[in-house]
């Protein structure tokens, strides 16, 4: 009945794009949602062009040149950079150790009951995955800076707080995304292996991992890059690394030192990007 109606409607004007109306409505809806957002966030670009503000910003940025590059500062910078890298890497390693088991428990791909049900696990097996998903949500819903503040109180000032904060927040993110990557690749190889009596972990290693590895690796390296940046922010609350140095330099209005450290960041992110590109190239 309904299909009859639609077909007559299409027949009356055969050239009308049936997707036009939904697209128009979606655009209007997006604009209607965006406007209150701009109002609520009190975004006013005019302040950027106010003469007094521009002068303040100008003098702040003007201090950045030339970047400090005397030997003593460079030694300090090198040490802080290594500390930042160490915080990010150790935090990611811990996060990875938590994330991988959680992702394996949370993903639908390794469901044995789904094999004979066209990819839909039975309801109770799906219900068992929920607590793991909830755990991942809890882990990532609290920002790392809050964890850092907490751990700075618990274990004192220094890199340990940063490592723990990154490990906890990032395990939630990695676990969720790993599980979703596993669900987005072709499920048939794993399903065929499970149907041939293979254990879940072997089905994952032989059926899912070859298709998902590149994506997972690229996401992991990207997260590592994020962890480097996060460890900087956490440095401001005393969790060590480059951030702590930037905080100190900013307080001392040493713009040149800040500039040197921002250049170091740029190099680190560039490094992460190249590493990701290289590893992906190896895997595809």
């Amino acid at each position, binding site marked *: 009945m309904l299909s009859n109606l639609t077909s007559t409607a299409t027949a009356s004007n055969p050239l009308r794009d049936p997707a036009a109306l939904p697209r128009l409505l979606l655009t209007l809806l997006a604009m209607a949602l965006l406007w209150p957002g701009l109002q609520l966030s009190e975004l006013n670009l005019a302040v950027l062009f106010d003469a007094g503000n521009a002068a303040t910003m100008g003098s702040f940025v003007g201090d950045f040149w030339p970047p400090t590059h005397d030997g003593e500062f460079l030694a300090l910078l090198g040490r802080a950079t290594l500390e930042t890298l160490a915080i990010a890497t150790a935090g990611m390693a811990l996060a990875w150790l938590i994330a991988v088991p959680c992702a394996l428990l949370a993903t639908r791909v390794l469901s044995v009951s789904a094999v004979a049900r066209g990819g839909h696990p039975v309801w109770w097996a799906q219900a068992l995955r929920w607590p793991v998903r909830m755990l991942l949500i809890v882990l990532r819903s609290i920002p790392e800076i809050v964890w850092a503040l907490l751990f700075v109180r618990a274990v004192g000032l220094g890199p340990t707080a940063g490592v723990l904060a990154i490990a906890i927040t990032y395990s939630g993110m990695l676990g969720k995304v790993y599980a979703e990557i596993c669900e*987005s690749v*072709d499920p*048939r*190889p794993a399903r*065929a292996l499970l*149907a041939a009596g*293979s*254990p879940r972990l*072997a089905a994952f290693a*032989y059926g899912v991992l070859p298709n998902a590895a590149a994506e997972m690796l690229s996401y992991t390296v990207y997260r590592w890059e994020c962890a480097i940046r996060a460890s900087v922010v956490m440095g401001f609350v005393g969790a060590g690394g480059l951030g702590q140095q930037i905080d100190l330099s900013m307080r001392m209005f040493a713009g040149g030192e800040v500039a040197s450290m921002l250049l170091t960041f740029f190099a680190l992110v560039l490094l992460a990007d190249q590493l990701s590109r290289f590893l992906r190239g190896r895997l595809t």
Partner: protein
Amino acid sequence: MTVRLTGVGLTHANGRRALQEVELTVGRGERLAIIGPSGAGKTTLLRLLATSLQPSEGRLELLGSEPWRLPAGQRKRLRARLGLVHQSPPLPPRQRVVTAVLAGRLGQWPLWKSLLNLLHPLDPAGARNALGRLDLAEQLFERCDQLSGGQLQRVGIARVLYQQAELILADEPVSAMDPVLASHTLGVLNREAESRGVTLLASLHAVDLALAHFPRIVGVREGRIAFDLPAHAVTPQALDALYANEQLDQPRPASPAPAPHVVTIPRC
């Protein structure tokens, strides 16, 4: 008895009845071909026998037990004894042929062995032997995405040969091969089944191949078994009835493998 289906029916989730009132008994060591028009239920029947689908009604017995009444652990062990050759083998494109073949024994190996084998192939000779019988030994260390459709099908068959399954199920195993290779490959499957005394069920589009290689022919039409006869007793009339309304003289193209859809993950 290797296979016994009693009054088996299967209704898909969308309400389409794929199989109904299927009665089929296959003894140990029997070799039979399943033929019938496209969409008749051949693939569904084989997937049912591979425990990849659960019957909606009726009784299914495999290798002396009822898989859907077994606890999960025993069902897993039963599944390791069943080998299904898929029409378009679901192999990850980046996987090497040697790994894809050795994966046949994942159900029998302990987990540590499976994981170790992923890092370093533990039985390349076994994989090479299985591939060699299908004239594919050269491709041992190539990646699956470098192979043609027919070569992939043979990798899928080599996996089941290596698995040493007690019930070999093959769903259109030669649909992407040229006639000579198809005949050779069916010969390999039949000799394997004969020499080890295991049961072989294969669905085939090509009636002549079925008649030439299999002693017993089962015709399936519209989800029911139309006939179940020894190969020499299959008459042209029975075939005409089986394929009625089908354009028999048109070559049927091998169904292409559906491309896996790629989902982009938001990265933040």
